[in-house]
């Protein structure tokens, strides 16, 4: 549906807002561009919507080139911009009708479509009120309805839930998810909310400084942080802690060990199951563990890993430090492990068992169009070869993960 190759956009100020961006988005997918403010998300969307020019690269949208066939591209897409652009002094119905006219639909078709969308977004009762009386969430719904008036197969949503309260945000997620499921609408959304990408998207690309750092399903990205994170805190100046750390690093289930002053971060394949062994090892070495916390990796962890910075920018200094330490090591040995998984899963580990189950599930799912997205697989290693991640460039994403093309559709969705 979308093929972007080497897209580069340089503003007159000399700023490379988008820098060699490669992206392939498939029909029927919800794809999230996740990045902090100023990452280049809006600029990318504007180029794809034909309203911004660009300096290098090629952009194909719905089979048309934005440069040579902009009019065809415009007819094929619906765009919800970051700023709403709906007219506050018109009613919801008038906004929708005008939008239909801009797409040269006939009157009867427009009316039918307004009824349909009004029902879908539960705006029926408010359609004849001025938009200036709408709540933020209603405006966003009207915005999306406007973008869908001409039945596009592809929509761009630029920060669709920006500025909404949690409740409206979750309600909007449900609509977006439903649009994708019921009408097989392809959705490219940008966001700087991790939960949004995590909850909504089948695949996520983390974008920072105009470059894509990594692409994958939320689960894969989280998996790339290598299992769970166990944080142990020792008494200040515990003489045995260092010895313990060295020893625990030798355990096969520990993929990485990082010190943050008196805290030890362990990355282990399956947190809960390993806690007894960790405690046992601690006792063997004569150290006292004061606190232990266990967490599944979040996309924030992924973001930190690939960009060396927190997306929210609220991470404390110490946190920042040890993540830099982590990133500086090129992600430890997790990439090697990925390759091992890819070739021959290590027997007996819970990881491998899950793996096999998943693959079986895939096969039952009647994997249509297996290996449908070869470009993605190939694009990943090169696209995350940033200056700090260059060690990762030989990383291979397990191709098995892609064998069931519908797999991402089966993920749990917020109801």
């Amino acid at each position: 549906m979308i093929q972007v190759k080497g897209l580069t956009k340089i503003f007159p100020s000399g700023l490379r807002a988008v820098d060699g961006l490669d992206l392939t988005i498939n029909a029927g997918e919800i794809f999230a561009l996740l990045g902090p403010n100023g990452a280049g998300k809006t600029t990318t969307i504007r180029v794809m919507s034909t309203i911004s020019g660009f300096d290098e690269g090629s952009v194909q949208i719905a089979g048309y080139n934005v440069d040579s066939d902009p009019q065809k591209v415009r007819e094929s897409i619906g765009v919800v911009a970051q700023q709403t652009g709906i007219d506050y002094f018109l009613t919801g119905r008038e906004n929708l009708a005008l939008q239909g006219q801009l797409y040269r639909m006939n009157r009867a078709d427009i009316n039918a479509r307004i009824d349909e969308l009004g029902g879908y977004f539960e705006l029926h009762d408010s359609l004849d009120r001025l938009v200036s009386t709408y709540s933020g969430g209603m405006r966003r719904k009207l915005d999306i309805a406007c973008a869908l008036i001409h039945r596009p197969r592809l929509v761009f949503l630029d920060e669709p839930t920006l500025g909404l309260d949690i409740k409206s945000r979750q309600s909007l997620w449900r609509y977006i998810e439903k649009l994708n499921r019921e009408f097989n609408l392809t959705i490219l959304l940008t966001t700087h909310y991790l939960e949004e990408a995590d909850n909504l998207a089948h695949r996520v690309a983390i974008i920072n400084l105009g470059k894509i750092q990594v692409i994958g399903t939320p689960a894969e990205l989280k998996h790339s942080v290598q299992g769970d994170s166990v944080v142990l805190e020792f008494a200040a100046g515990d003489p045995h802690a260092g010895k313990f750390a060295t020893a625990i690093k030798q355990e096969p289930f520990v993929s990485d060990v990082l010190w943050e002053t008196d805290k030890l971060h362990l990355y282990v394949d399956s947190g809960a199951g390993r806690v007894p062994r960790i405690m046992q090892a601690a006792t063997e070495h004569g150290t006292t563990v004061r606190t232990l916390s266990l967490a599944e990796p979040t996309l924030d962890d992924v973001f930190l890993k690939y960009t060396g910075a927190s997306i929210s920018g609220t991470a404390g200094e110490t946190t920042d430090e040890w993540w830099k330490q982590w990133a500086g090591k090129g992600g430890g040995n997790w990439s090697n492990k990925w390759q091992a998984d890819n070739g021959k899963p290590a027997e007996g580990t819970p990881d491998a068992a899950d793996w096999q189950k998943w693959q079986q599930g895939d096969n039952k799912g009647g994997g249509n169009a297996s290996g449908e997205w070869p470009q993605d697989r190939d694009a990943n290693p090169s696209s995350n070869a940033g200056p700090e991640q260059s060690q990762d460039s030989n990383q291979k994403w397990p191709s098995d993960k892609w064998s069931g093309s519908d797999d991402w559709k089966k993920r749990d969705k917020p109801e």
Partner: protein
Amino acid sequence: MLADTWHLFGKYMRITLRMPMWTFFTLIQPLIWLVIFGQLFRNMYQASVPAGGHYMDFLVPGIVIMTVLFGSAWSGVSLLRDITSGTVDRMLVSPVSRVAIVLSRVLHSAAQVVVQSVIILLLAVLLGAKISLNPLHLGLMLVIVMLLGIAFASVSNGLAILLQREEPLVAIGNLMTLPLMLFSSALMPVALMPEWIRTVAHFNPIDHAVAAVRSVLIAPMDAGTYAIGFSVVAVFAAVTTGWAISAFNSLRD
């Protein structure tokens, strides 16, 4: 393109009709000029141009043109607001004709000043001005008003795109209107002007517009003056609209 223009024009008209106060607000200034100038210059005018009739009659065409200037200069400001609010982007991502986006704005402005001129004319009649109320004459006057409205709305939109900011646009708008009025026969008969101002006025489209409006509003009608005024204003409108459209097309960043 015509259908696109019509739909967008309809939208702007609808918004304007929902906020009629704005239309009246821009009438206040011309009205003040009409009353104050009518009083201020009356004696001087009648002393200097004994055969010229009432100053009020002479002044009304000038005030009508002034209404056009004040009324259409806001078009660019609202374009900038539409750009900031995302309304323009919403049009640009649709297949709507880019020409229609500019044309609809400009025509909306023109329609607005036509209505405003009619209101000013009615008020002037109430204030005692003796002008021709012949429908043909009024129609011819409104043609000039419309063309000039298109021209100045285009200038305003074009400048908005070049300047990208509201403040300088408003400043230039204000700076531009006064000399355009003063270097024309809007307020002063040509006979009272110094030679050099007369020469400058010759190149001022406002002067020709005022002359054309005056030629139909004040009997007897002067077809020759009207024809010249019409041609000048029509060419002016065409050139400025073309310029505004090309400025808009260069908006892509």
